[in-house]
């Protein structure tokens, strides 16, 4: 038996449609050209359809000519703890390879793209369903012998190439393959398809891997530039508000000035004054103020027809879309919007005296969820643009609209709960403040969210504030009801959660 020859083993984790098969062929071809015995297998099946897929390669790093009559017998399945290189085109797939035991600290070089291609379960969550990026990053850092992590997807995009070429480049520069970078590049040339783009991606991948850039944080936020017309308000915030809440307050003031006017921004600050007071009393260190301020700004900039029109006709928007399309200067493009306002949307911009009877009448007739007016409007045409401009111009009448009155009433109710709770416990108040997340969106989404909030108010928040539910338990109850409300659009999880809560408190009362 020959003890010393062992194949170099490579596991490729990719998504269908990324060209993992082509990447595998390049590697196999390069190895064969060098005379190394090589074998690959794959589970391609229905992989073209963005499912997770793997390819497995074994290369014997001794030319067949030197092995004489001996022919290696290579494995078809990757082995636990038997992998030299794992390369993953996506961060969660790197995590999957680790969880499956293919990445080991004694042996494996893990080359992973820090980019995420979210899976369906993450995307369909009603709130934030994304998997904990830091957890994946820690697992990547803590389980391999060496790691090379960079954003392959961005590297590919910047180089105008497919991600598989970038992956080959990363493999070429890692120094663990028995083939040289030139030999791998030769495989791209021999393949003869999209050679220039693939070589660009290959070079970019090599460079990025050499630089071994640390993975960028998964949820980086970019700030938004606003005009600094209301500098005085900002100065007041900086002078008087707790440091922990200042950035949010400034952002809020700017947003509401842009949304409505400076007076509306002032209303925002006024509304927060009592919150600041209870925050201080409770010793929350600005935490309660910060969270309430964040949600209050979002709630006060609720999405009505005027807001949508403002956004659609924003001067920077069409330029941004042109950039996304890659339009050259002067190159014609068209942008078409999909709108389907209903009776409620029209009533949004009417005064309450007119809106209420119309809505009541429509509701009796069962029109509310039926009568919609679908339209496709081109913002790049003059008439289309004018329509949005005209709608956006209604901003100055917003305070007189039915929707404004409705929203402000809702905001006041919610704030009152936060303040009342804040007088007793900052934690409870923060949980209530967080419930503002439920009220968002348009049409049925908005109605569903508002109804959920009212349910939680009635069946969890009020009982705690009225002393029918112990405090600790109440805080948990509000938090879990809020989470449950975001589980499914049908509201089943929320009902179950609230039923369980009431059942439990009744049982306890009986005891």
């Amino acid at each position, binding site marked *: 038996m020959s003890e010393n020859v062992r194949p170099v083993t490579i596991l490729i984790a990719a998504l269908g449609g990324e060209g993992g098969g082509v990447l595998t062929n390049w590697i196999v071809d390069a190895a064969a050209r060098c005379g190394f015995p090589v074998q690959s297998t794959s589970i391609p099946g229905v992989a073209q359809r963005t499912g997770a897929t793997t390819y497995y390669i074994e290369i014997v790093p001794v030319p067949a000519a030197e092995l004489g009559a001996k022919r290696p017998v290579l494995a078809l399945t990757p*082995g636990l703890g038997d992998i030299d290189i794992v390369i993953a085109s996506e961060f969660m797939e790197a995590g999957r390879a680790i969880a499956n035991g293919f990445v080991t600290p004694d042996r494996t070089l893990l080359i992973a793209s820090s980019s995420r291609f979210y899976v369906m379960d993450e995307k369909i969550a009603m709130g934030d369903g994304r998997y904990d990026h830091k957890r994946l990053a820690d697992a990547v850092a803590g389980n391999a012998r060496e790691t090379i992590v960079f954003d392959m997807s961005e590297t590919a995009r910047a180089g105008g190439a497919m991600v598989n070429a970038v992956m080959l480049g990363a493999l070429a520069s890692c120094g663990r393959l028995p083939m040289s970078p030139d030999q791998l590049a030769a495989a791209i040339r021999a393949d003869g398809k999209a050679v220039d783009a693939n070589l660009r991606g290959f070079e970019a991948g090599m460079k990025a891997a050499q630089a071994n850039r640390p993975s960028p944080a998964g949820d980086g936020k970019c700030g938004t530039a606003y005009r600094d017309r209301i500098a005085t308000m900002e100065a007041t915030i900086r002078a008087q508000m707790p440091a922990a809440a200042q950035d949010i307050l400034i952002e809020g003031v700017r947003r509401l000035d842009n949304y409505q006017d400076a007076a509306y921004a002032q209303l925002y600050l006024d509304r927060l004054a009592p919150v600041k007071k209870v925050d201080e009393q409770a010793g929350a260190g600005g935490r309660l103020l910060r969270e309430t301020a964040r949600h209050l700004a979002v709630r006060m900039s609720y999405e009505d027809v005027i807001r949508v029109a403002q956004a659609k006709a924003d001067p920077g928007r069409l330029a941004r879309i042109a950039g996304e399309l890659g339009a050259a200067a002067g190159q014609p493009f068209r942008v078409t919007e999909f709108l389907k306002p209903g009776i409620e949307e029209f009533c949004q911009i009417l005064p309450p005296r007119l809106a209420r009877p119309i809505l009541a009448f429509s509701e009796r007739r069962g029109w509310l969820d039926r009568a919609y007016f679908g339209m496709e409007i081109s913002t790049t045409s003059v008439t289309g643009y004018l329509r949005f401009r005209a709608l956006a111009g209604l901003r100055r009448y917003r305070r007189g609209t039915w929707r404004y009155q409705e929203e402000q009433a809702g905001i006041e109710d919610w704030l009152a709960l936060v303040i009342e709770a804040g007088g007793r416990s900052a934690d409870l108040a923060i949980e209530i403040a967080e419930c503002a997340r439920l009220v968002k969106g348009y049409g049925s989404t908005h109605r569903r969210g508002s109804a959920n909030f009212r349910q939680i108010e009635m069946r969890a928040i009020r009982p705690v504030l009225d002393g029918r539910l112990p405090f600790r338990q109440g805080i948990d109850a509000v938090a879990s009801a809020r989470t449950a409300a975001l589980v499914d659009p049908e509201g089943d999880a929320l009902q179950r959660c609230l039923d369980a809560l009431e059942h439990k408190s009744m049982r306890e009362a009986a005891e």
Partner: protein
Amino acid sequence: MERSFAKEVEALKLGDGEVFRGEGILAVTKALLQSGVSYVGGYQGAPVSHLIDVMVEAEDLLHKLGVHVETCTNEASAAAMLGASISYPLRGAVTWKSIVGTNVAADALSNLASPGVLGGTMIILGEDYGEGASVIQERSYAFAMKSSMWLLDPRPDLPTIVRCVEQGFELSETSHSPVMLDLRIRACHVTGEFVAKNNRRGDYSGLNRLSGPPRFDYGRLSHPPVTFVQERLKVEERLPAARRFIRERKLNEIIPGEHDDVGIVVLGGLTNSVLRALERYGLADCFGASRIPLYVLNVAYPLVPEELREFCAGKRAVLVVEEGHPDYVEQAVNVELRRADLQTRVFGKGVLPQAGEYSSAVLLKGLAAFLAEVKPAGIDTERVGATAARIFAHVPAAAAAVGTLPPRPPTFCTGCPERPVFSAIKLAQREVGPVHVSTDIGCHSFATFAPFSLGNSILGYGMSLASAAAVGPNMAKRPVAIMGDGGFWHNGLITGVASNLFNKGDGILIVMQNGYTSATGLQFMPSSKAGRSGNAPGMDIETTLRSLGVKWMRKVRTYSVAKMAATLKSALGSAERGLKVIIADGECQLARQRRVRAEDAARLAKGQRVVRTKFGVDDEICSGDHSCIRLSGCPSLTVKPNPDPLRTDPVASVIDSCVGCGLCGEVAHAAVLCPSFYRAELIRNPGLWDRMLFTVRRRMIGWLGGRVGEAAA
């Protein structure tokens, strides 16, 4: 078919001494030509689709060799083709995905195996088992046993696979029995090389036709009274002949080893995995030499009792490595050893799991358990145990560090025409409440995954309508059956539609008319708009259904979500009894993109006008509720971090892979979602009118305070 296999076709032309490099299934294809087949047929399905795909594209080469290729409409028609070899010295091969294809073919196979064959016949089975499989997990082995067909399970190594094909034909002819060649998924896709031989013309073929049928011979019919004789012939003549051939030609292999008080009996297809597991315990090397003797069954059925006895004689224990349930080989080994009165203990299921694929981890565990139990002389089993413990120690901690990851199943392609139908069903259900949905095989079965999670049963290819036959009469609401056009022609037309009409059934059938059997790799089928030789086959689903007597029929463009939902609601609510058919019409986007991209590139190169469409979402307007994703599920519609510092929930985002199918706009409209979607169209090589219009609009909007044009820096 839109994909080109030109490179693969070249590999089929290799001659004596040239080195073939490629995948396992292509090696089989080449081996068929080297064996002098006169005809080839099959029904596509992973992992054997390429065999037929490549054969179809190799039309010229096959013409020269006189090989007839048939792209059958289902596996039963493929199996029936083998009838040509019952009375004539014609070698032939057919292929399909197993177990499902073998199930469909079973009637013909039984009727083929009973009279037996004169010409060599081979059935190439893509054993869709284990990781990556898309069908129920059963073994093909039972079919071989019950019909007396021989089952080859070659070592996943190209020279061995090729040898098994070539000798398989001889085995078939010697024993007058059909032979099955069983290839697992990874074996079909394994790459390697072998030294090729010249292709051979069949003795009789399209180039040298038979003059006519032989004299009438009742013995060639599977019809009583000869069926009773045939049953006896199977066991008394054909089986012994097969065993003789297998033994003489050494189809099975013995790998000797110094620790010969124990041994391993392994099915050919699992040999490499077993050798690697042994290697990790220091009991084998990477050239296939082992310290423990191996008996490699390249022929899984029948077992050769003499060979088995010789291997087991003098051994205290053997381990049978056989994937899946039931343990046919293990049972047979036990019986043969009993008959020979050999006291060798037989291990198998027990140290190895009863169900599931034998992955590297499973074999490492099983071998360690076997060795710990039997303690072969000279093997430090404690060291083996320690090695196993070390290998497995890392896994729980690694898995815990990562956490439970959500799955990433395959899904409808970006722009798929079938996805909108499920958006429509979801919307219709909001109004009429849940309905029974009987699902079928095909891309549309991806609707069983999130975000649709639709479907109450899957009963097989083309079976959806038939599987709802007893649901409708027992339920308040009409059931809905989903069927692809592939499934319609494979089976659904007769099994489903004809049976429903014959029984004056009710219910709704949605036929996805995308023009190809897409899930198996975009093959043409009877109602495709094009065919193998360029011309459309000319069959039409709508005409066919009308001629059968379907009265209620609507054809709806799939992307029209609102119209589809309305049509479905009217079908559900209609007072009229009888089958209601909705033809959901939309070309497979994968095929369309392959065509359109090439056309666009050509137009661009010629300086002609091309419009590129992409959808987008306005971050500020998106509420982060993701209703749109729950109704669409498009891979290019995803989420991204919210750029707004005041909001934490991610917003929807359309990424570059968008093909502009328009579904997100349709869904936003049909479901009255948020107004954040927009369609952006970039005009490349714009004409004079495009430029003028754009310039005028840009100016005017500029005067109005807007900005159109150059991207912000």
